[in-house]
């Protein structure tokens, strides 16, 4: 199968060369097309840094990243931006949208920034349950509706991979479940790859593959078990035990 994402020995250090903090410590990872990967770990374990480096939002201090078939490690900023724009979708926990623009304007933002033409805008809006709200300013929407706008924006360019950073972090379980359902459907129906960082075992249970991080290293990489088992393993990893794949 195709590797959509390929990280080799990726290290990200913040601050001075020797005394700085190591957020990622030589992480290697391959992600196949059409899979749903959840990344978990305690606060400060390097989850978000991994996502940022993999998505080309940040550059590793060492190692290399291949995204959608190209080495992006040393790509020039403008070129990297276009590469990202045409192949990657993002859903963040917050600051997902431009609050003063309408739903439709937000969803069209990537294509207005020069990205691919929107594919079936009305269909995408309807599929995330926003068919009626296209003209509403985003600031008038609820948290769950906003997150659906973000997903519509990520889907409308037909990306190869969607990166999601705590997409349900600010939502109640029911609303969060609907958001995850949308991501799951993008994987199953459209063959999109999803890489999602989360704190929540119930959210992670929607994925196919579970990565656990501690101190900037991957300490477990296995098919996703159910939510209760995820919670157990997360506790074990946070406590410092080595997890053996089930």
């Amino acid at each position, binding site marked *: 199968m195709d590797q959509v994402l390929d990280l080799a020995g990726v290290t990200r250090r913040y601050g001075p060369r020797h005394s700085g903090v190591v957020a990622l410590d030589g992480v290697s990872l391959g992600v196949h097309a059409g899979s749903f990967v959840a990344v978990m770990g305690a606060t400060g374990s390097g989850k978000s840094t991994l996502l940022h480096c993999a*998505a080309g*939002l940040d550059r590793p201090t060492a190692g290399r990243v291949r995204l959608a078939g190209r080495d992006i490690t040393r790509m020039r*900023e403008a070129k990297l931006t276009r590469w990202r724009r045409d192949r990657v979708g993002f859903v963040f926990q917050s*600051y997902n949208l*431009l609050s003063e623009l309408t739903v439709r304007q937000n969803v069209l933002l990537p294509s207005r920034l*020069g990205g691919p033409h929107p594919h079936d805008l009305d269909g995408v809006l309807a599929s995330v349950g926003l068919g009626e709200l296209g003209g509403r300013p985003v600031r008038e929407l609820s948290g769950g509706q906003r997150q659906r706008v973000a997903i519509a924006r990520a889907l409308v360019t037909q990306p190869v991979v969607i990166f999601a950073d705590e997409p349900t972090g600010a939502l109640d379980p029911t609303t969060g479940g609907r958001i995850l359902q949308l991501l799951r459907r993008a994987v199953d129906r459209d063959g999109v790859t999803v890489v999602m960082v989360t704190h929540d075992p119930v959210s992670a249970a929607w994925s196919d593959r579970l990565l656990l991080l501690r101190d900037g290293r991957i300490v477990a990489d296995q098919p996703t078990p159910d939510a209760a088992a995820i919670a157990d393993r997360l506790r074990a990893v946070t406590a410092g035990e080595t997890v053996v794949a089930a």
Partner: protein
Amino acid sequence: MNAGLTRQALRRHPWSFLGPMSTQALAAAIIAGALGTLASIDRAPLSAAARQVLVETDVPDMAFIFVMISIYLSIFIVAVTMGATIGRQARDIALVRAIGATPGRVRRAVAMQAALVAIPAALVGVPLGTWGGRAWLDGLIAHGVVPGEVAFHASPVALPVALAVTVGTSLVGALIAAIRPSRVRPAVALTETGAPKRRTGVLRTALGLVLVVGGVGLSVFIAHGALDQAEELSFFTLLALCVGTGLLAPTLLRAVAPLARLLGPTGTLAADNIAARAKAFSGALVPLILAAGFAIIKVVMHTTAAHVSGVAEPPADLWTEYSGTAVYTAFAAVAALNTFATVILARRRDLAVGRLAGATHGRMLAVLICEAVIVIGAGLTTAVGVAAATMLPMVHAAFGTWMPWLPPSYAAAGVLGVIVMVLAGTVIPGALAMRGPAIQTVEVDA
């Protein structure tokens, strides 16, 4: 299309454009006033001889110089004030960068914002400038610089020229201001929260110290050296001291901040804020030192001359000299005021948190005023020092005395002007920033 980010910024943070807009309005006003004066001289029913005399006065040259000053100062100050405006948009910029806006596109969107607000600014500035130009010309006539036959006519090209200049300088200034923020990696801005924690570089402090020590050394050297070059050399003293104190400004503010603790709990809060935001506040300190230093030197040289010789200078000369100084000072005052306003408006959330923690409106305003008093006090004290170091050798060379002279009424007017500045720069934006229920501000800006 850059419209997304531009529309977002104009609707979400309209007050953050106060700085660039007031700079543009001032530039447009000065251009309209200067062009009006030139047009009035052109149209005046004067004999060839009288016209020749008028052309040979400094007035047409000065009008031209005012236009040039406006162009370069507005590029500079729009760049400074847009820096703060862009800072308010860090999150939005990171978002659009993540989903596909290149750094170049972000820079163009920011330039577009500045150019868009330049249009209403010019529309406000031109009538103000026409009014100001009339007052200036009346002053010139009253002091006998310009013959009474000259009547003020607004220039028909004032509006198009002012629009072209303000839009053009805003584009250039905003593009300069956007270079660094547009290149920040999206991940950095998405994860960064609260006030940016940047430490003052050792190099900056060292360079500042070298320049200040060098400037003072030069001043001492000039005072003991060749008298005929005092004025030329003093320019370098001024330059070294202004740049040097500018570099030292954050360090200086952190050093004087504890003085505010003498004013009780309110002062303690203010002292902590100044220390935490020394870099942001130094944006107000630099133009303040420049403007006050320059104005003090200009005015005191003239008043000392009159005091020592006992002969008053021709009011006509004074009028033209002082109006030039006033243009510089106005730009610097706008820059300083805007820095205050921007720093305060950017703290909406902090002020709301303070109110939720139990502080009243009045108490929070008192903290803001206290901060302004400390910063402006530090700026003025530094300016007096800079002016003294620059001026004393000049005074000594020209008048053979070490005692400069400033009439008490002038000093009082200066202090009054500063008090008005403190109040305008803090109370108005402070009240604006604290509109509405605190809890709403905390939630909206979260």
